[in-house]
């Protein structure tokens, strides 16, 4: 089944020895040579910042780029809940193998075993590194690190810093990066966008970047180019991604020959604040950690749901026996902590069946009442209060919940105007993360020699569904502990390559093409804003390539996207000039790429005639409505190769499971 164009370069040996042996045998670059080797890192989130700082610590010359005004603002900052690591500090039977197993199973058996095992192996090092940097993780009174549970696991292996784990980890990586900037080992280019990658003799040799303040195009040489540019969830317009998150860097790489892996694997996060109106610009996630203690339900009777939607009934007035805790009912073993794809689909199923709440009917309740009562009783016991009254219990319980989730509850109240301590929160699934991305081998190198993809930008570790608290783990694993080793395998062969002057024709050509695209966008002078097109694309994607997909819808979506793309290039209006700070131009260039990616996502979803993880094809489900995989025909990574103008060829990397018995994924 595997295609000769794809060599995953998985080392020989048993699964638990591959990485160890690889590290001992990978070619090294000596310190004197490292000083002459330049590496470009695009993106400064957890993966990019950790890679840039670590490569600089090792002695390479690094240039780092981000479109934000500071590397500290990359969207990793918004991750809330936590980071997994197989430390087994809780003595609950965790191990490298269990983390490996949970991740493969959570990914619905569509991830590469060797990569995932390596991820589990280095997970513990990440926690050590972050603590050494001064990341203030939550701790117990005894001074040791605290853990909590996340979806899809039965152990407590998630480390956290209140509801701001991403921020604290990113500030750790950012501080290491700034240290290297201060030492002159990293040159930082903030407010710069990568517009294209430059290939010379088939190898990645640099990028064209646009200085977003002056609008000037710049040429930058590198012996290797590392893309850490994040995911592409914003193709849906509404997502939990930051407004600026985009696919441009990865897409330009794809257009220069890098295969795109599993583009249709999108994660829809179950606990987001529901849409409030047409003005909505983004969706806000409520951390998965809330499912530790919160219970999810909808009214059990349709008339109650209708009364709630009409504003005639409040959730607190619905009696316990008239509530349907549908996750606990359907999945007793994991209950409210089933993986994200399962929880999202179950919410959609209830809302589609007419049990949704909110004026729109597109919401379910996340209720803390029983957690508040439970914690209140425990706290009363701790404080030696005997026979406490209900009010005391509730007040003590609220204090405990505030300590654990206070910032999330505050955020909910700011956005919705409803106090979640007194009334259940309303939540609905929203696009959150993309498991698909640039295809990479074991070294994290794309199909273009010298071009690497790390973090969410690559496809490698999460299969068809990512488990909570694993994105932070993967970003930092790639940046601190994997890429810095594996890149040596390539760079050791480049020590004789001198810096290529940027007046080389490949740079001149690439820059001219970028300039041409920008001029075209500015000169269309059409009648509709960039957002107008982006919103229409988002609606097509959400309706037809979102939580549930079917062949007919996907075919329609492809035609609609093609038409929309044509209309965009005829009728978009980009005010202002190219040579100035022009935020509409930035958006236009990004949306132009989303309009191509969207089509490929639909093609990939159409090709995959099975349901797995976040990819749910309505034609392929069990009688109970669970996803039905087809291992005989689809146990492969779909790696798409661009062969012409919006023309793609499918290459397949067969997935072999030698260490885990592939099975139906059950959380019942």
């Amino acid at each position, binding site marked *: 089944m595997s295609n000769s164009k794809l060599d995953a370069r998985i080392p020989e040996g048993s699964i638990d020895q591959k990485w160890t042996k690889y590290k001992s045998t990978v070619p090294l670059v000596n310190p004197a040579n490292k000083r002459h080797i330049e590496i470009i890192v695009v993106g400064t989130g957890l993966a990019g910042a*950790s890679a840039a700082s*670590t490569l600089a610590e090792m002695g390479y010359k690094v240039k780092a780029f981000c479109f*934000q*005004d*500071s590397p*500290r*603002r990359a*969207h990793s*900052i*918004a991750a809330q809940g936590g980071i997994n690591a197989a*430390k087994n500090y809780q003595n609950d039977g965790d191990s490298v193998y269990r983390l490996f197993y949970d991740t493969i199973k959570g990914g619905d058996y569509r991830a590469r075993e060797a990569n995932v095992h390596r991820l589990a192996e280095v997970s*513990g*090092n990440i*926690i*050590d*590194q972050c*603590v*050494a*940097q*001064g990341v*203030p*993780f*939550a*701790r*117990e009174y*005894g*001074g*040791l690190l605290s853990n909590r549970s996340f979806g899809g696991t039965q152990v407590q292996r998630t480390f956290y*810093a209140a509801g*701001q784990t*991403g*921020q*604290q980890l990113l500030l750790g990586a*950012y501080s*290491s990066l*700034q240290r290297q*900037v*201060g030492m002159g080992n990293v040159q*930082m280019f*903030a407010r710069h966008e990568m517009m294209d990658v430059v290939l010379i003799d088939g190898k990645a040799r640099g990028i064209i970047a646009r200085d977003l303040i002056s609008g000037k195009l710049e040429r930058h040489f590198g012996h290797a180019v590392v893309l850490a540019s994040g995911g592409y969830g914003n193709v849906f317009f509404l997502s*939990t991604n*930051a*407004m*600026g998150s985009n696919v441009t860097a990865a897409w330009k790489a794809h257009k220069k020959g890098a295969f795109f892996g599993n583009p249709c694997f999108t994660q829809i996060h179950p606990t987001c604040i529901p849409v409030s109106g047409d*003005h909505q*610009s*983004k969706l806000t996630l409520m951390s998965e950690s809330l499912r530790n203690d919160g219970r999810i339900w909808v009214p059990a009777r349709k008339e109650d749901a209708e009364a709630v939607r009409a504003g005639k009934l409040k959730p607190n007035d619905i009696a316990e026996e008239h509530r349907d805790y549908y996750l606990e009912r359907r999945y007793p073993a994991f209950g409210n902590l089933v993986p994200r794809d399962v929880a999202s689909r179950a919410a959609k199923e209830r809302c589609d069946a007419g049990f949704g709440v909110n004026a729109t009917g597109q919401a379910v309740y996340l209720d803390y009442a029983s957690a508040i009562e439970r914690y209140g009783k425990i706290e009363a016991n701790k404080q030696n209060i005997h026979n406490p009254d209900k009010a005391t219990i509730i007040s003590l319980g609220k204090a405990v919940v505030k300590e654990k989730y206070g910032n999330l509850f*505050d*955020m909910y109240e*700011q*956005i919705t*105007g409803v106090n979640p301590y007194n009334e259940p929160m309303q939540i609905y699934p929203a696009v959150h993360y993309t498991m698909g991305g640039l295809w990479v081998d074991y070294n994290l190198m794309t199909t273009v020699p010298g071009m690497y993809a790390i973090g969410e930008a690559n496809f490698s570790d999460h299969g068809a569904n990512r488990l909570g608290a694993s994105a932070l783990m993967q970003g930092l694993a790639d940046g*601190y502990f994997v890429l*810095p080793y594996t890149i040596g395998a390539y760079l050791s062969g480049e020590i004789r390559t001198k810096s290529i002057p940027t007046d080389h024709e490949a740079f001149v050509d690439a820059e001219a093409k970028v300039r041409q695209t920008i001029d075209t966008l500015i000169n269309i002078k059409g009648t509709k*804003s960039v957002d107008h097109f982006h919103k229409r694309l988002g609606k097509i994607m959400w309706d037809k390539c979102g939580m549930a997909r079917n062949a007919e819808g996907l075919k329609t979506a492809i035609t609609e996207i093609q038409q929309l793309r044509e209309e965009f290039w005829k009728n978009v209006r980009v*005010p*202002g000039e190219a040579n*100035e*700070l022009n935020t*509409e131009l930035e958006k236009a260039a990004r949306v132009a790429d989303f309009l191509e990616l969207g089509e490929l996502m639909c093609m990939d979803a159409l090709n995959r005639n099975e349901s797995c993880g976040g990819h749910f094809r309505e034609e392929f489900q069990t009688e109970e409505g669970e996803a039905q995989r087809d291992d005989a025909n689809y146990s492969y990574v779909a790696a798409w190769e661009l062969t012409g103008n919006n023309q793609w060829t499918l290459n397949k990397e067969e997935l072999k499971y030698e260490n885990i018995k592939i099975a139906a994924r059950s959380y019942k």
Partner: protein
Amino acid sequence: MKITLKVWRQKNTNAKGQFETYKLDHVSEDMSFLEMFDVLNEQLINEGKEPVVFDHDCREGICGMCSMYINGRPHGPKHGVTTCQLHMRSFKDGDIIVVEPWRAAAFPVLKDLAVDRSSFDRIMAAGGFVSVNAGNAQDANNLPIGKEVADEAFMSAACIGCGACVAACKNASAMLFVSAKVSQLALLPQGQPEAKRRALAMVNQMDAEGFGACTNTGACSAECPKEISLSNIARLNREFLSAGFTAQAE
């Protein structure tokens, strides 16, 4: 609701700016302040005008990129909230809202409401870190840290680097920003070996960037969207002074 906006427009750093007045007739109270600006910009684009440039990214109050000075207060009227988390239900029908960029010599205006805050990055590069390379760390639980200390360090580490403290300060001082990082790392054992050197280096860089002096008015902490405490500044002063007394000639 109907809203009138008076917005600072400035073509670039060197251009002279001025206020422009815009009227919006259909503002929903569920909109965030930035979504209201999206509506304004859509309106401007449809009228063939240039949209207002403003910094924003995550829109969930954590990236620190949004930076509007609203009716004379950084991030607007609500306490402990960034502009992106400010919702129009905090305003009334018929309100006139004045929106300016951060005003500080060390934060030059780039265009309209967007300013250059790279001075903060340079302060961080001067010393806002623990010098530990990847791969050098011991097992995380080999270094127990009391919960109270860890929690206090976390409170300081919650700074999002937005610059509201500077914008709120009549002297445009960056003491709250600098002190939050100095405090976080001085509180933790990992940061102590470099504590003195860090305080000196970061304060020196802060002065070099042209931030003003601190006169303890407390406006910074009162306006901080993450409610970073003034006690950080006291700790920085302590660290800085003791560093000055014990500094070795290098």
